[in-house]
């Protein structure tokens, strides 16, 4: 084999044959550090003191009881959207429609409240099912289009986000509107339609639901036959088919799992945080899910960790918004900077860079 090297001036690039696990991890961590560094610089330029940044993002978010409670509250739905993206991406189904499925999960839960389905004690469970069914229903359309008619799912899932958001608007300005409310939302959920609080800030049992979902998804992807099928389908669909693996069914099942996880996230926010269906229920979750899945390389265990850090970023960012009057977009910007840095680090994973003298 000829050694594949490329020289650019004094820099020589060499294609790596393989990479040690620790070196790979080190490169990714270094790139995140670079991203955080750039973000800090950005905040400093926006007029925030370095020591204040440290306080807002580290001390008041992770080492303060109220702050940590906020982080944990935010953590639960982020775990679910991260898992949702990871599961779909594992079979090369690019689900950009997490936000729409999330909205439909919230709708599924809300429907139980609006139509007062079943006896009161069972409604919180029906809402759970409603969330899952809502999310699955919303991803079923692009899944069908992709698997039957080869319609690109990136476009169909993306566009269905807007359809979902507009549908919610339509309902909130119409049939489902709470006449007593000051802004557009449904009536408040009754006490028995809410997820029970655990007695620390606003944290509710949804956190345990999310962590249990992460454990189940981990078991499925890493230990089950279906998870093994997903690996082959994601790695080489042609080979998977020739090996006798039911490729279409595997993709369909993974995609439905993805939709149900997003829908579950919508249920958590509607029944655990907002206690109503509002137009803000899903904002930002879809793309956060994609970012989390990307940063954790579609690994469910890593999703749990990354989404925790992402929740911290949200909570810290919120207080910066409140106290310094900086725009909400700043959090998205920091997310993007970190993602771009990690994407860029891929270069150092693929190539060995050497200085020549």
């Amino acid at each position, binding site marked *: 084999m000829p050694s594949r090297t490329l020289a650019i001036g004094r820099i020589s690039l060499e294609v790596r044959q393989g990479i040690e696990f620790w070196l790979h991890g080190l490169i990714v961590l270094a790139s995140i550090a670079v991203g955080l560094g750039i973000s800090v610089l950005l905040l400093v330029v926006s007029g925030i003191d370095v020591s204040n940044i440290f306080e807002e993002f580290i001390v008041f978010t992770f080492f303060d009881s109220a702050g940590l409670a906020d982080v944990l509250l935010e953590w639960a739905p982020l775990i679910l959207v991260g898992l949702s993206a990871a599961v779909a991406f594992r079979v090369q189904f690019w689900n950009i429609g997490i936000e729409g499925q999330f909205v439909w999960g919230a709708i599924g839960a809300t429907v139980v409240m609006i139509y007062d389905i079943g006896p009161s004690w069972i409604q919180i469970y029906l809402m759970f099912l409603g969330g899952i069914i809502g999310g699955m229903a919303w991803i079923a359309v692009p899944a069908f289009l992709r698997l039957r008619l080869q319609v690109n799912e990136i476009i169909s899932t993306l566009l269905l986000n807007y359809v979902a958001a507009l549908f919610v608007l339509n309902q909130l300005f119409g049939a489902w509107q709470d006449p007593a409310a000051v802004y557009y939302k449904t009536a408040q959920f009754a006490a028995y339609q809410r997820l029970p609080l655990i007695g620390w800030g606003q944290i509710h049992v949804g956190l345990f639901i999310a962590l249990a979902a992460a454990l189940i998804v981990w078991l499925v992807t890493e230990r089950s*036959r279906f998870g093994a*099928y997903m690996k*082959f389908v994601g790695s*080489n669909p042609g*080979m998977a088919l*020739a*090996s006798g693996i039911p490729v279409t069914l595997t993709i369909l099942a993974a995609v439905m799992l993805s939709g149900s996880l997003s829908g579950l996230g919508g249920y958590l926010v509607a029944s655990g945080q907002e206690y109503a269906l509002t137009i803000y229920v899903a904002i930002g979750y879809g793309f956060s899910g994609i970012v989390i899945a990307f940063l954790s390389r579609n690994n469910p265990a890593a999703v749990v960790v990354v989404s925790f850090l992402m929740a911290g970023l949200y909570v810290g960012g919120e207080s910066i918004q409140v106290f310094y009057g900086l725009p909400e977009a700043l959090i998205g910007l920091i997310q993007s900077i970190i993602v771009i840095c990690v994407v860029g680090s891929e270069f150092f994973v693929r190539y060995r860079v050497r200085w020549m003298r």
Partner: protein
Amino acid sequence: MAHALQMTDIVKSFDGRMALDRAEFAAEWGEVHGLLGENGAGKTSLMNVLCGLYRPDAGRMSIDGVEHRIEGPSHARALGIGMVHQHFKLVQPFTIAENVMLANPQTSWRKGIATVSEGIARLSDELGFEIDPAARIDRISVAEQQRVEIIKVLMGGARLLILDEPTSVLTDEEAARLLRTIQALARRGTCVILITHKLREVLAHADRVTVMRGGRTVATVDASSTSAPDLARMMVGDAPVDDTEPGQSGPVRLQISDLTARRDDGVSTVRGLSLTVCSGQIYGLAGVGGNGQTELAEVLMGVRAPEVGRIGLDGSDITALHPKRRRALGVRNVPADRSAYGLAQELSVGDNYASTRLGSGAFGTMAWVSRRTIGARANAALEDFEIQGATVDTSVRLLSGGNAQKLVLARELHGEPAVIVAHSPTHGLDVRACAAVHDHLRAARDAGAAVLLISEDLDEVLNLSDVVGVINRGAIVGELARPADRHRVGELMLGHA
């Protein structure tokens, strides 16, 4: 007088495998020179040496009697050597003029495009091409793309034009037109070297023909003084057939009737093919690449649906079955393109070994997979098939070709295969790995499997097969019992091609 081009004693090896073994070649100005040989005979390697893509291990090369050491493609281009490769080197979304300019850099973009466009217009007038320099590559046909390649090379000042299998992508009409064009080019003094395995083209359009086999030059003859059977004989040679025991064939296991299948681009490449393979028999399907072998193998694997026809296994119809069901009935595949159908490159040896039998619950229960069971079974397979230097956790990407192929065999030959479809099972392997693959296939045959060996390597087919079938243009054109007459097989392979 010195030859226009002379190449002497050219040697080139890859990983210890001789691609060129003291090959000779000489050509003159103003002739169309056919370079003929089977797949792997060394035609393309020799021309890649000439145009600077490969650096030979040994050998001399001279143009008009002046010796040159070609340092690289740009050096070759400066000497007036230009090659049109079988797979075009064009940038899809760019225009024709931009592509030509990429190969022939100009000092300024805007002026360069104008100059190049003018040159293209002039040349295409002379050659009778109709080419619009502003058209985008992805909007023009394959035949037109080829014309662009030729113009690109000629604009670079090539006096020595090499065309690698130029007609393989063309319809008959387009091919005839191209061959007339290159004859016209030769009349203007260009030396055109036509790499091909189509006898008819060479006989009709070349002035002289050089035949290669196994990396060596067999002979150079005048096209007017030779015949198709002579050329076929030179191409296939007289290698001795080995004398291993033939198989004891039993009842019919695989029966293919009137099979027709299309390639992805809609062209029917398998056209009414029928054959039967018995238990304990190796049926060798010989043929020049591109005559429907790939699509046949895909149809048998179950990844391509046939247009018409029936595939029977032990009497039952499996034509419409999912690969999973076929495997359950004992159909196994050794695909030609390992990276497409054989192995998942990014996954481990253990995972790849387990892939085909996960569905039966062989590695754990129906719901769960036991990593430990996979590890243990894969480890045993590594030992049985002598796959050295790899563990069950090694990524398949890092395996050598021989080890990767042995891994495929270890997986596919497990249990009691009923039918094994082996497509080019030794392509790119070294001698030892080749022998191991052959031994495994013979052992499977002796255990009662029906083996369909699809190969472009004639020696392999003749050595291994109990029955030799020849595929040409998607159908069986002849079947010969062992020992099959090499020359007859060669004629059938190359006939009316």
